[in-house]
């Protein structure tokens, strides 16, 4: 008996013309860690919903074929029963927290299944310790950050020690450190508890080395099903958009075997004598401290919390943004930004990176005028347009054509969507529409700020967005993008800032900053050990092919 089996499953959402799943047949065995790959809208999330019985029990629609979870037919057993065997985590953690406190959230699935008080208390403590959220247990769920919500929702899904865990982009809201920790935890669950894990993820480089198997979805069907190395070979031929940066690096460098992870890639390069000679092991996070910090007043305490900051719009020297000694403190709460200094040049693209809660979003909100600084000086010489995390928040009307004028829609390449509902268009199109809305129809903004624009976006979407940002920078707009995605930062930004605890702890060229870290580094940089400041596969391949920079083959 397989842990999860699909037999010729075809599923239509209610009212949909095309099936979300089309004749899917697959079997996932006990103890497998399986990654679902594919572009957005090709059936990955629906596959997970069918696996836990939400499709069709909860969503309705038409369902053909058979899904069995631990031998239970999902047509005959309701999601509540299937939920005893599965832990499920979907993309939006906010709607997956249903209780007021973290402790009650973790206890709910255990209590609902009739466990005794002692078992509930033990289960809550254990899962909290396993996920490192024990300090959050008595916090209110309303107060948690996005990353914390994600971890609590995952803990609630795991609290009942399910045999099968289904996860839909669990790292989409997490910083690279927390994302790696989560993948490590899933691997531990899989190895030590023999838990079957089905993980849907766009950033495959994060999880491929931990996977036993990769299932690629295309058009609602299984396009490929095999081991990670097989998948990468298949992706190189059939679906280049699904290739990991490491695989792309090897492909461009003319190396045959695509690496499943950094370790394998480095081993191959070493064997081939291609590992750059000067390569040292990647520097730890402490390396960032050695960069010149632009924060001149780092540890200084504000003299008075009552003093407020000033905002000057229309500065004289043409610098789009200049910030000096910027503080933002929450009344009766912590300081989010601590004496930040920043100067942005016209046409400059900046990637703002750092852990969840480092102050990235707050800085962007201050620049856009959504918040007022509590101390410090902020000068902008033009409009700062801010694109917030969820593009859907910009749409208040029923038709795309009601949100923007025809001219603006044409400029954004969305004219043909004028009659569609903005909530029905694809993620990439929604992003473009929201970008066009915040950019406005008149004079373009001096600064375009984007807060986590690639959340839940596939690689094609990211590439399109990066190209758009580079185009805007070429036209003289300054672009500041807060992101957890080093690959995206490398593809669009020339300068990177690393924030920690409300301070800028590193500020430099993207190639310099993202090539030397453990976490805040691209896969190419980690494979090459930061050599030559290569961040992207194209740059890395160039480096590998340049004889002066590499060791001669033995």
């Amino acid at each position, binding site marked *: 008996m397989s842990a999860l089996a699909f037999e010729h499953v075809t599923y239509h959402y209610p009212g949909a013309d095309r099936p979300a799943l089309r004749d899917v047949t697959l079997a996932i065995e006990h103890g497998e860690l399986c990654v679902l790959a594919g572009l957005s809208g090709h059936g990955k999330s629906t596959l997970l919903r069918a696996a836990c019985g939400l499709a069709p029990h909860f969503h309705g629609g038409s369902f053909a074929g058979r899904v069995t979870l631990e031998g239970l037919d999902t047509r005959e057993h309701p*999601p*509540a029963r299937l939920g005893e065997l599965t832990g499920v985590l979907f993309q939006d953690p906010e709607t997956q927290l249903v209780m007021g406190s973290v402790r*009650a959230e973790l206890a709910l699935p255990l209590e609902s299944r009739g466990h*005794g008080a002692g078992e509930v208390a033990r289960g809550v403590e254990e899962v909290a310790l396993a996920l490192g959220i024990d300090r959050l247990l008595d916090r209110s769920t309303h107060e948690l950050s996005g990353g914390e919500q994600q971890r609590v929702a995952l803990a609630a899904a795991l609290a009942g020690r399910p045999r099968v865990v289904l996860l839909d982009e669990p790292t989409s809201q997490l910083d690279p450190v927390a994302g790696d920790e989560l993948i490590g935890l899933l691997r531990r669950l899989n190895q030590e508890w023999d838990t079957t894990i089905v993980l849907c993820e766009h950033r495959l480089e994060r999880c491929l080395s931990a996977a036993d198997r990769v299932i690629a979805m295309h058009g609602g069907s299984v396009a490929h099903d095999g081991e990670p190395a097989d998948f990468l070979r298949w992706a190189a031929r059939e679906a280049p958009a699904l290739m990991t940066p490491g695989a792309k690096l090897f492909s461009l460098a003319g190396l045959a075997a695509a690496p499943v992870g950094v370790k394998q890639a480095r081993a191959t390069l070493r064997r081939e004598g291609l590992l750059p000679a000067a390569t040292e092991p990647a520097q730890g996070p402490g390396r960032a401290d050695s960069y010149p910090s632009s924060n001149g007043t780092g540890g200084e305490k504000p003299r008075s919390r009552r003093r407020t900051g000033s905002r000057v719009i229309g500065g004289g020297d043409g610098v789009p943004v200049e910030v000096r000694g910027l503080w933002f403190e929450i009344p009766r709460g912590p300081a989010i930004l601590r004496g930040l200094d920043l100067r942005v040049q016209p046409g400059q693209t900046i990637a703002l990176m750092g852990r969840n809660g480092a102050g990235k979003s707050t800085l962007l909100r201050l620049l856009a005028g959504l918040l007022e600084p509590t101390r410090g000086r902020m000068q902008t010489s033009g409009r700062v*347009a801010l694109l917030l995390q969820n593009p859907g928040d910009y749409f208040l009307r029923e038709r795309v054509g009601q949100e923007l004028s025809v001219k603006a829609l044409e400029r954004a390449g969305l004219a043909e969507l004028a009659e569609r509902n903005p909530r029905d268009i694809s993620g990439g199109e929604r992003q473009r529409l929201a970008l066009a809305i915040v950019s406005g*129809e008149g004079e373009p903004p001096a600064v375009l700020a984007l807060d986590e624009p690639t959340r839940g976006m596939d690689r094609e979407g990211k590439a399109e967005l990066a190209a758009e940002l580079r185009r805007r920078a070429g036209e003289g707009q300054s672009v500041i993008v807060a992101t957890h995605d080093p690959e995206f930062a490398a593809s669009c930004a020339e300068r990177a800032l690393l924030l920690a605890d409300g301070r800028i702890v590193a500020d430099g060229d993207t190639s310099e900053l993202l090539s030397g870290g453990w976490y805040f580094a691209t896969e190419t940089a980690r494979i090459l050990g930061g050599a030559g400041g290569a961040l992207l596969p194209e740059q890395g391949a160039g480096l590998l092919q340049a004889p002066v920079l590499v060791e001669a083959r033995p």
Partner: protein
Amino acid sequence: MSAAARMFVYKRLASPLHGARAGVGALWCVALALSALASDSPIVLSLVLGAIVVAAALAGVGRELARSLRVAAIVAVPIVAVNVLVSREGLTVFARLGDLGPFGQGDLTVEAIVYGATIALKVTILMLATTLASLAVDPDELLRAARRLSFRSALTASLATRMLPVLAGDARRLADAQRTRPPGSVTRGGNGRHLCRYAGTCVEGPPLSPPSHLSRAYVHAHARTTLVSAVVASSLDRALDVAATLELRGFAHGRRAPRQRRAWSRHDLAFATSAAALAALTLAAHLADIAPFRIYPEVHAGAPGGALALGSALVLIALLPFADRRGIEP
């Protein structure tokens, strides 16, 4: 989270009331409210009101309660005004409005004002006690207890309590997104009219013209309506997501939550004793008519000493549990 939403959201703080178990905390709030409902004496009512305000301050939620007090004041004024206009009881007339047809003689009486003020004071106390309970009593623990008694009611309450902050968060995000629209940006309304951004919101107006002719109130009212309709439109999706999560967490099994046996803390005992003493004193005072206060047909109050003594005793009993601040860290 908006200030309005924060008014009703529980947060574990370091206070004796937060330290007490939810059932006991809720019982104490009910006893306090009942002590006010059982008396008409303005002295007793004012002292109980003061006790709630001080209790909130000692529980660390004074700021939130002050907001609730402002709302209560807005509710109280019409209560007094309506009672003066509709009440036909009382002998001390201070204004005559003449014959009001089907409503009879429009005689306004002092007794009607006093009665309205007493009711308003009771409503205020009830609102503040409810606010204090929502801020200082763990709703999850109460829901857990409710699941042992009535599963369906607890399910509905769970959904409702969760949806409130989720929708408040949605509204905040949507409002922020609208504030980031550039000034003068034009969108078209469903009826073909144009929408211009003004004061951080979207309102209807002529294309690309500043809506200076529109009153600020209209602008904000329209913006709020648009925002609320967008939040309501998304609330069904949100409710479905939350319901799907509850389904997968096994809520549909309808199993009774296990009884949690835990030792009674000093705060459990203190607040339970206080609640019992409040209830006993209220009952005794009611039976013995310690603080008599009659309004109709003429205002008649007994000697103030009885009311003062009763009110002070209620305040003392209510606030004594706050004196012990050991073991209150969340």
